[in-house]
């Protein structure tokens, strides 16, 4: 199990990149519909039901696990994207510097205008034609300065307007950014809440399945069965699992993802695992085909395993391959309800796969 942590880390990366399931809303809605179909009328039939309802509870547990995992992945992805795109609201908006419109510019033009105006006035009564030419030249200069003064004042106004717009923008930006921060925080709380709900649903279905198998003295007599099969109420009650995690995390049919599977050591090509449980005893079969690797001539392996359910999250069983080689297998619940890590080892055999470690998806 030394590679478990590595596998779990890889798995988390896969979850983040959408390996386990799509992260769109459609994906979780689809998972929700599957769950609703799986659990249809389960509670209504729980009062009188038996094995079919126990199996239905297990299916519903798997379906709600898949739904919650898909939805949490979707919301986390949506939250991460939102935080990323809202980063632009964190930076102050660009504005032009008002320092580039110093008062000295206007003052300088004003002084020039006053000087030339005074000079024009001095030559106002001079009849000398040359002086009159000079005065006309000064007049043109005065007109140019007057026009310049107008544009300077106009620019001063635009600089003031830009500054005012920048201040208003900055206030609005800060307010909007704070509003989106609140939203991000609310979304994170919702995700945390949903994760709690996921765990609660798993516990609920486990207890429900257990409760359905407990006969009740006050329960009405069920109608005589048509078949010769014994009534579910007369069967031995399902033992309460001593495992700290619901049995549905191990029991069922699992396989290796077609793409981007997580493994350590020999790379699986296909894996099919079936796990069943009865009165605290578990068993199952595992069929595998591995990709070609040096020293391995036979890439296929098949074995059965069995053992008691232990009071630990990791369940360890003994195995026997189809050609009689013994070994051991560990089943470790993954971080999502529809994930199971498998780690097995067999006694050494020439040209055969001796061990494997990979993550399976629930069918």
């Amino acid at each position, binding site marked *: 199990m030394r590679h478990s942590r590595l596998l779990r880390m890889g798995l988390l990366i896969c979850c983040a990149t959408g390996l386990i399931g799509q992260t769109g*809303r459609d994906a979780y809605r689809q998972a*929700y519909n599957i769950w*609703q179909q799986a659990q249809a*009328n389960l*509670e*209504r039939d*729980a*009062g*009188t039901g038996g094995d079919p309802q126990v199996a239905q509870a297990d299916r519903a547990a798997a379906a709600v696990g898949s739904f919650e995992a898909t939805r949490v992945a979707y919301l986390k992805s*949506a939250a991460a994207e*939102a935080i990323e795109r*809202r980063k*632009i609201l964190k930076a102050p*908006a*660009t*504005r*032009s*510097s008002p*320092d*580039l419109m*110093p008062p*000295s510019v206007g003052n300088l*033009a004003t002084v020039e205008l006053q000087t030339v105006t005074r000079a024009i006035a001095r030559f106002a009564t001079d009849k000398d034609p*040359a*002086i009159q*030419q*000079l005065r006309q*030249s000064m007049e*043109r*200069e005065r007109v*140019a*300065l007057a*026009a310049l003064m107008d*544009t300077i004042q106009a*620019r001063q106004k*635009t*600089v003031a*307007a*830009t500054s*005012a*717009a*920048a201040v*208003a*923008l900055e206030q609005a930006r800060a307010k*909007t950014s704070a*509003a*989106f921060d609140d939203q991000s925080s609310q979304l994170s709380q*919702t995700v945390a809440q*949903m994760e*709690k*709900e996921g765990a*609660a649903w798993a*516990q*609920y279905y486990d*207890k429900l399945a*257990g*409760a*359905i198998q407990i006969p009740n003295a*006050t329960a*009405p007599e069920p109608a005589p069965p048509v078949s010769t099969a014994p009534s579910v109420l007369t069967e031995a009650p399902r033992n309460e699992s001593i495992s700290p995690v619901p049995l549905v995390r191990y029991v069922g049919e699992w396989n290796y993802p077609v793409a981007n599977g997580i493994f350590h050591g020999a790379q699986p090509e296909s894996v099919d695992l079936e796990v069943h449980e009865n009165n605290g005893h578990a068993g199952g079969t595992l069929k595998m085909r591995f990709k070609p690797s040096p020293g391995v001539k036979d890439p296929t392996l098949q074995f059965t395993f069995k053992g008691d359910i232990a009071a630990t999250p990791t369940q360890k069983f003994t195995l026997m391959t189809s050609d009689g080689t013994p070994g051991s297998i560990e089943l470790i619940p993954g971080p999502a309800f529809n994930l199971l890590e498998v780690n097995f080892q067999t006694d050494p055999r020439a040209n055969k796969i001796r061990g494997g470690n990979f993550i399976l998806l629930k069918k």
Partner: protein
Amino acid sequence: MKRASSVFICAALLSCAAVHAQDASQLSTLEQIAQKRTAEWEAVAKDMNERMARILPCDPRALAAVTEVSRASEARLGALADYLRAVSARAFAETANVRNLLDAEEKRAVEADLERADASQEQTAVNTQSEDLAQSARQRTSLEVPQKLLADIAAMIHQRTAATEQQAGSADAAVALLRALVEKFEARDAALREEFAASEAERTRWNGYYAARRSRAQMECTITQIGARSQGKQ
């Protein structure tokens, strides 16, 4: 003003991609250059007339003094234009980003609305499950434990439904704020365009003034020479 403005917009758009990555330090550099050019112009412009008053009209230094100040003025206003162009390109890119954000957040608000509807649907479903299980628990007392768990789940979903209700409302409010913010960005951009157009108009007027001042210096020289020739003839 309009022409300068449209030329400015074209120039800004053309340089938008190139300037998009321009960081604040580059803007700061351009601003420092503009400030330096302004100081240099002020230094030579403030006493131009005093200096010219001490130079004879036809002394080449008179025209050179006007030319020097005119060049300093052009350098100042050119640096200012470079700075404002860079500020505007960066500002326009920001506005485009905020518009894109608005698009994305409008979609997110629609999703939040759908999530509210989803939560409401879950609430209804779990209520039905609870009612059914309550009926079944009358037939099978062992169901009381899961019944309690289901009640807890229903309470959690109820709480979450209320939260998603609040989130959908706050998403709409945030989008409204963002829409108003886009308007503020656009107003800032419009103000920058006006500022740029005004600086270009001022640039033209300063050039016009210095041309007129040069013309006066030439006129002073001309009439001085006419006066000298007249005195020579007498």
